[in-house]
Structure formats: structure tokens, C-alpha cells
């Protein structure tokens, strides 16, 4: 009898890229539901647009690059990129925004850099940042949360806004500025944080409504860490650093700087910490490196939020730390077994 002679090991424990990516999708579900509950079905519409665009772009690029479609589409990585971007976009953004951003993310930020495993930057965040810098107006009008309005736009209204004419009145009726925006502009006008925080858009911990969304993402993220689908060091480093630095400044000048819980629960900090920063391809890969990488994102997020020109800093912070990841890796190699400490 003739047998195949493959090299050891001869067993595989069954993990696959597809499984890793699908777990990320499962972990996103609680957050997605919370978003729908608080902001209406907009996010689902965006997700649908983003996913179809991403799959089409992925298929196109794979074909152009001569890669096997089945194997690479089955890895679900495009699906994850699309969902992450859809969640980051305003739920009522016009459809072409989503198409543009997703296409850019998949075609330019992913495939032109070499495809899965080779992209130095997080594709979803590249797509997001391109949109944010190119279309700031469309990108800053968020659907007003349920807790503020008492109702969310229904599906028909959402579809009309996403795909149809967008009149200023209808838009104004259902959107509001995000809290981080508000905070920035108000502080810019000379108000103290406490004054601003008495505005009804603020809730218990952070922005009204957002707290629930963030808690849901936190739950999904923790599950993912438990499953070891995401490296716990990155969210720990990021949220830890963000908490520490915001606490310090808040203690120094509570009138000018927002408290730590506000930083953690208002914007994209939790979502970013567990779902964006943990993208393994563009993150640091050593254990200590991941802590440092996460901490870097946390600090940069706070800096951009507090002194920078953009409402939320997570996306920029992640991209900046993507650049630093290879260097961090080089200096944080673990002590090899048997090597003297």
C-alpha cells in the first residue's frame, strides 16, 4: 500500500480563518441589536449595503489576483470588514457613502496591499477615515437615540433617507450631533464640562443611549477574549490607558476635561478596543507588544478627542499605532524558553 508522506504534525485542531472571523461576527451581534434598538434599523441597512459591496469587491479583486474564490470568500474576512465599517458609519448615511467606504477598504486598503494577512492598516478604519475627511457633513449627522426622541425612525423613513432625496428638514428631525461633538463645541465656547453634561444628550455614564450600545459591545468583546479569538491584551491596554490618562487630567481640571467613564462609554472606545484594535493582521503580535499597542491607542484616542480636530479619535489612533506595530514587535519579543532573563 502506498501512503501520502506529509510532514508532521499530522493532526490539526480544526481552527480556521473562517472560524475566527465568524466568531467576530457572533461577538458583534449584541452590539448590533443594541444599535437597532437605540437608533433604529439604519445600521442594518448600512450593514446590508456594506456587506454586498464588500463581497462584490472581494470577489472582483480575488478574480483579478487569480486567487481561488471559494477558499478566500469563505474566510469571511470581507464580511467582518464590512460589518465593522457599517457599525462605524452614521445609520442614516446616504448609500453611496457606504459603498464608497467599503469599496475603498476592500480594494485599496486590503487587496492593493497584498490581501488577507498583508494589509498594514486596518481596512475598515482606512475606509472610515477616508469618508470622514472627504465627507465630514454626511459623516457627522447621527440618528438621534431612542432615549432622546422617544422613537426611532422606522424602516421606510430609513430607506427613504438612505436611498432617496435627503431634505434638510427630515434629516434634522431624526438626527442629532454626537455627544463628543457637542462636548467639543461647547467647551470651545467656554462652557465647563459640568454645564455641558447637564444637556439631555448625556446619560448616566456617557452619551445617552450609547451606554447601552457600549455595554453590549463590551459583552461581545469579553466573550471573544474568552474564546481567545481576540487577544485580551489589546483591549486591556487600550481601555486601561484611556482610563488612566483621562482620570489624571480630569483630576487636574474637571472643568476642562471629561471624566473617565465618559471617555470609556461615549464614543467608539469600547467598540474600537475589542473589535477594531484587535484586528490581528495590523496589530502587534507579541503579548507585551499588544499591551503597549493597546495602550498607545488609548492615549492617542484621548489626545485626539481632547486636543485634536476630530470628534472621535479611535480610528486615527488605531491607524497611527498600526504604523508602530512592527517596531513594537521587534522590541517586545518574549523570553525564549531556557534563555536567561
Amino acid at each position, binding site marked *: *500500500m502506498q501512503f*501520502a508522506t506529509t*510532514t508532521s504534525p499530522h493532526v*490539526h485542531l480544526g*481552527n480556521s480563518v473562517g472560524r*475566527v472571523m465568524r466568531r467576530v461576527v457572533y461577538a458583534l451581534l449584541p452590539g448590533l441589536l443594541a444599535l437597532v434598538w437605540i437608533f433604529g434599523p439604519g445600521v442594518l441597512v448600512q450593514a446590508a449595503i456594506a456587506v454586498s459591496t464588500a463581497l462584490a469587491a472581494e470577489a472582483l479583486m480575488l478574480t483579478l489576483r487569480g486567487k481561488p474564490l471559494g477558499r478566500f470568500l469563505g474566510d469571511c474576512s470581507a464580511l467582518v470588514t464590512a460589518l465593522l465599517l457599517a457599525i462605524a458609519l452614521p445609520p442614516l448615511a446616504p448609500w453611496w457613502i457606504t459603498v464608497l467606504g467599503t469599496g475603498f477598504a476592500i480594494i485599496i486598503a486590503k487587496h492593493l496591499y497584498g490581501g488577507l494577512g498583508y494589509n498594514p492598516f486596518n481596512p475598515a478604519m482606512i475606509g472610515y477615515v477616508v469618508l470622514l475627511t472627504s465627507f465630514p457633513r454626511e459623516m457627522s449627522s447621527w440618528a438621534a437615540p431612542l432615549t432622546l426622541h422617544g422613537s426611532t425612525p422606522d424602516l421606510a423613513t430609513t430607506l427613504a433617507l438612505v436611498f432617496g432625496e435627503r431634505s434638510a428638514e427630515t434629516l434634522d428631525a431624526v438626527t442629532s450631533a454626537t455627544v463628543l461633538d457637542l462636548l467639543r463645541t461647547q467647551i470651545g465656547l467656554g462652557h465647563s464640562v459640568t454645564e455641558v453634561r447637564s444637556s439631555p444628550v448625556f446619560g448616566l455614564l456617557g452619551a445617552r443611549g450609547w451606554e447601552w450600545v457600549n455595554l453590549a459591545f463590551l459583552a461581545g468583546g469579553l466573550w471573544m477574549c474568552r474564546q481567545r479569538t481576540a487577544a485580551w491584551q489589546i483591549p486591556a491596554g487600550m481601555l486601561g490607558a484611556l482610563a488612566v490618562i483621562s482620570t489624571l487630567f480630569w483630576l487636574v481640571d474637571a472643568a476642562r476635561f471629561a471624566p473617565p467613564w465618559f471617555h470609556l462609554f461615549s464614543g467608539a472606545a469600547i467598540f474600537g478596543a475589542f473589535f477594531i484594535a484587535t484586528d490581528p493582521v495590523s496589530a502587534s503580535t507579541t503579548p507585551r507588544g499588544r499591551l503597549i499597542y493597546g495602550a498607545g491607542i488609548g492615549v492617542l484616542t484621548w489626545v485626539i478627542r481632547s486636543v485634536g480636530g476630530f470628534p472621535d479619535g479611535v480610528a486615527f489612533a488605531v491607524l497611527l499605532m498600526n504604523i508602530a506595530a512592527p517596531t513594537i*514587535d521587534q522590541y517586545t519579543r*518574549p523570553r*525564549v524558553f531556557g*534563555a536567561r532573563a
Partner: protein
Amino acid sequence: MSVLNTITRLWRFHGGLHVPEHKAESNSAAIEALPLPAQLVLPLQQHIGAAARACVRVGERVHKGDALARADGYISAALHAPTSGTVVAIEPRPVAHPSGIPVLSVVLESDGRDEWGPNSLPTPIEDYLRLDPAYLRERVREAGIVGLGGAAFPTAVKLNAEGAIRVLVLNAAECEPYITCDDRLMRERAHAVIGGLLLMRRALGVKDCIIGIEDNKPEAAAALQAALEQFADDAEDVLLQQIPTLYPSGSEQQLIRVLTGVEIGRSRRPVDSGILCQNVATAAAVHDAVTEGRPLISRVVTVTGSGISTPRNLEVLIGTPLSALIEYCGGYTPRAARLIIGGPMMGLALPGDDLPITKGMNCVLVAGADDVSAPEESMPCIRCGECMNACPANLLPQQMYWHARAREFDKAQQVNLFDCIECGCCAAVCPSHLPLVQYYRFAKTEIWAAEREKKKAEQARARHEFHLYRLEREEAEKAARLQAKKSAAQQRGHEAETPAADPKQAAIAAALARAQAKKAAAKAEATAGESSNELSPEQLEKLAAARARAEAKRLAATQTAGEAANDATAALSPEQLEKLAAARARAEAKKAASAPAQANADAAPALSPEQLEKLAAARARAEAKKAASAPAQANADAAPALSPEQLEKLAAARARAEAKKAASAPAQANADAAPALTPEQLEKLAAARARAEAKKAASAPAQANADAAPALSPEQIEKLTAARVRTEAKKAAQEALAAATAAVAALDADAQEEAPTASPAAEATPAPLTEEQLARLAAARARAEAKKAAQSGKPASSDQEQ
């Protein structure tokens, strides 16, 4: 105070995996003796170290237990007849090794009587625990015992560390899935295991022993405990520790860590930290060797997996064919998909079962298709770090992979490639299904090969420098003598005013002239036969004949190339040497393509560095292309200056040459022509060849002809074309073969870190390895390694250090 008192807990190592254990298939099967096979094949090298030296002749009758081969050197192990019978052959036979290279083996035909000889057994010793340690070691050495856990390192050598050892660790972990031979041995022969342990302890002069056993073998642990109690006071200071089941806790380094907290890295051997590790089966073998005088002629082998009808544990004579084990266990089931020696994590997959059992084989695993991972299409690394989390050596497998794949071997070493124990944890968890371990093996062997080459080149350079120095000295001495004589003669001449000194001077002059002539002749020889431009028909004839011979010998040629280069060194400048060494390195790794390198080495003395440079660059390019087009080219270049007769013969020679594998011929032809060429000619040659190579093989002849045309008469063209038509027909048939060969050659060339001579483009961007390439490279390298090792008598590699 006993060290054992300080051991109050177990330690952890980083990573590790819970792999499905599959022990239940075979751990209830008691050890059975396999019926005597008709023929045994005993490789002389089945251990780490030098191969044993056969001490029997073909046709000799031997008794069971008689020595067949003696240890050859300190690190080596003797071999004994597992049964009585006749030596029918001593010849190379295939063994279970990644290279698949046959190893010299004693073939023993059993006479069915299985008789011990009158002298084959030394006297049994009852009161063995009071023996002299030196005598104990001698007995172990004579018995040919090696590590039975898989590594097969000669046990006597390890036991020689007397005085340096504080703790003796008995490895009873058996952490690889499926394997149960140690488990059964401990359950059934716990007394022998403990006895062997105590013997080794005595041989080493240590007091403290720790037995490490995974907690999935409670029966074996209980049996050991009972045996310890039987030994009572003799077994004092032996600690039995059950450790958590976690692969690879049976790896020496990891086991020592778990039991003692000491980490033994690559830079230290276990003995340097005063710890020695021995396997349970080895202990039992030591016991048998001392108490019964029984040499190592059999071992327990687990035959298991869903591809085998009845999993069993068998007591098997060394040298028994695997097929006999399979047959005894009811044969293969329809599910059988992979035949593995050892466990599923580190074992070696074999193509077939016509190989003998050797001392280091603990398991024959016939895995069903769904038990093992199919060689699945892999995805790119997503840097998830799963591999890192699983690595028991605390390495960064993902980074080692990146570097190995890009052939950045120095960087791979910087991330501690050589600390990798090839346990396979990383590959088993990689979501992208990357064959990581294969990449590491590839990188390691490449680095070893490069280091060996470097050493060789350094030796050559040193030799050369000494040679130069000697020449200079001799020259100076000669001049001094001459001067002395001259002045003496002059003086005499002055005195006598006669030309009496002339004869002497004439003699000196004659001697000088002779020497000169010899030198010239030697040089002529060195460059003989190279230039087609200036060849007489006879020379051509010879050249063709020589080439035919050379091709017939491809493998032999590889070695000669090295020698030829060495011979040539005398005439070479250091730079040339440098390049020559690089060329040789490449040459040795090639198969078919080796012949041209030889030609080159021969030709080297006459080449200037620039020529060498160009030649090498041209060759690198040429080899990467389909070989078929080159011969025509070489011919065409040579043609203009040839007489019609020469052409005739050349064409005939070509026809013959083309009947051979294409890869070697063209490059050689080219190389032959090179030495007499000026740089400009070389330039042109390269340019012309580049043009020719751009076409397909089909169009090449036409162009070659066109190039050659101006100098050819119509008749010549006629003949040339006729010859071409004949050869075309042959070529067509060989096209496929040639293409395949060329592909392999190109691949090999690639693998050789062409940096110094490859074309700049190739150098700047070495294409990352695909897995297919990797597999081929690894196989080729393994073969080469094994061959070299066989020649130098050193171990090929210690694959399964478990």
C-alpha cells in the same frame, strides 16, 4: 539534604496543547510477542552518532544475541542478532528517514530456532544494585542500548556524566497521542523499569530520582508505586510525580521544567544543569542488559490507529519488517490513509510498510483519513498569534515563519529558530493551516548547509594562503641558492679566467626550463579542451566522449566538482576562490545541473574575476530557462570558426548529447567555450543567449542557425539542418522531461541563496516560497544532508527528540 525535599510543587511551561489522546484504542492491549519473522534487516545506523561497524561476514551463521556490529567511536552503539540465523547480505537498505536514502544494513535470515549462543550472554547478575558503576556502564555499552523514547541517543554515553548529575529524571510522560507502549511496559514490567532506574542511578552516582508520569496513566503510576515499595530502602529518594496531561510534557526540556522548575535552553545541555533524563523503556532495557545480559534486540511497539484492524502492543525484534506488524494486527482497514512512525505530532509519515523496525520506533500509527489533517490548502498568516500562545518554547512562530518563507535565514535565527523543538503545536492550531514546522526544518537545514560551506571555504582559503606562502618561500630560497652559486661561480671564473662554470649554469637553466615547461603543461591541462574555437577534430571527439561520460555520472560529478575546485585553488586569487566557493555551494545542491558547475570549476583558473562574474550571471539566467534552447545556442556560437568536419562531428555529438537530460549539457557546453573568450565575446554571448532564451524552444534552432549562417557554406547549412531535424524529433519527446528537470534545477538554484552571482533582479526580490516549492526543497535538502552525513559518518539529524 535531598534535592527532592525542595520540590514541593509542579511548574508550568508556556503554551502546550490538549490534543485528543486516543490512548484508549491500545492501552488495554497487553504486550504480545510478535512471531519470529523470516528475515530481519538491521541498519547499522539506527541511533544518533557514528554508524556501527559490521563484524560479521555474509554467509556467517550467528546465534541470537551475537554481536553483528560494534560501536564505531565514542558516540555509537553496537548491534546484536535478534535471533539465530544466517547473514545473507550486508547492503544498503531503505530505512525510515525523511531523506529516504538507503543505509548499510545487515540482512539476517532466521533459522526459526531462535537459539542463544553459548557466548552471546554475559553472566546474569543477581545483586545488581551493588555493582561497580564503571562495570555497569560497560554492560550498557556492550548491550547496544540507545534512548528508546525516540531520540535513540546511545545510553552509555549519557551515563558517562558521572559526578556531574544531581537529579536523574525518568521520563514516563508518553505525551504523544495514540502511543501506549510505555504505559503497557510500566503496567507489566514496573519492576524492571524501577530496577533499570536504580541501576542508572548507580552508574551515574546520583541519589535523587524523579519519575514524571502524565496523570492519564493512573494504572501505570500505581504499578510503579508498587514496584518502588518492593524495592523498599533501595528505592529511597525516588519521587513519583504525576503531572498534568499536556502535550509536549514528555519533551525532555518541558518535563524537566515541570518537575524541577529548571529551564534548559538551547545553550545548555541538561547535564550542564545537573539533570539527566532517561526514558522508561530505556530503563527496562538497562535492567535486562545487566540482570540477564540480554542485549537490546527487541522493543515494545504500539500498533494503533483507525487504519489498523486490531490495535496492539507488540514485543518486536529489531529489524522486523513493518509489514509483519501490520499483518499480525489484522492488516489495514479501508480507512487507512497515513502510515506514521511515532506519534501524530512529531512522527514521520512513510510511503509504505517495507521498512524495518529500528531501536527508536515506539509506535506505528495507521491513521484514518479523518484522524489526520489533510494537507489542506493554506491561507496567508493573519498574525493571530495562536501559534505563539501554543509554543512550549515561548517562541514567535509567526515571525520565524515570515523570515523562513522569505529566506531571511539570519533574521529567522535572530528570532531563535534553533530553540524550536519541532513539537508541532504551532502548526496544529494555526487557523491558516500553514505547515509551519516544515518551514522551520527547511530554514534550519539551509542554515546548516550554509555554515558547512562557509567552513569549507575558509579551510580552502587557509590552504591556499599557505600554498602561496610556500611557493614564495621556495622561490626566495631558490633565488638565494642561485645567487650564491652564481657568485661562487663568478668568483671561480675570476680566479681561473676560464668558462668552466658554464656547464653548471646550463644545467640550472635546463632545470628551470623543464620546470617552466611542466608548469605550462599543467596549465594547459587545467584549461584543456575548453575552447571549441581552437579544437582539432580529435579533441572534439574526446570532448564529446568526455561529456557523455560526465553525464552518465551525474551524482559522482557533484563530488568531483568540489575536488576539482580544490585542485584548482593553487592558481586562484582570493577573489576567485571566494567566487569559486560560492559556485561550488550551488553546484552541490543541484542534481542534473551539477555537471556544468564542474566544467566551470575546471575552467576557473583561466578566467579573470570579471569573466567569472559574467559567466556566473549568464549561467544563472540560463538555468532558469527551459534547457532545450541552450544547446542550440552554444552550438551556434561555436559554429562560425569550425571547419566542416568539425561541424559534422559537433552535430553528431550534439545529437548524442541531446539524447541525455537537457539540463546539464547546455550549460556545460557553454562553460567549455568560455575560457578562451574575451570579455567582449562573453558580453555578446550573453546577449545572444538572452535573445535566444526569450523564444520558445521551437524557435531557438532557427535563430541559432541564423546567427551561425554568415560563416557557413550552403552544404554546412544543409548538414546542420538535417542534424537539427533529427534532433528535433528526439527533443519533442523529451520536451516534457526537460521542462520538469529545468524547473527542478531552477528551484534548486533558487534555494541556494544565489545572492553573490545571481542576476540583480533575482537577488533583490527572492520570491517567497510556495508550499509546493518548500516541500520539494525540503525533500531535496534532506536527501543531500543524509548523503553528506553518510559520507562524513555523522548523524543526519536528530528529528524526533522526544
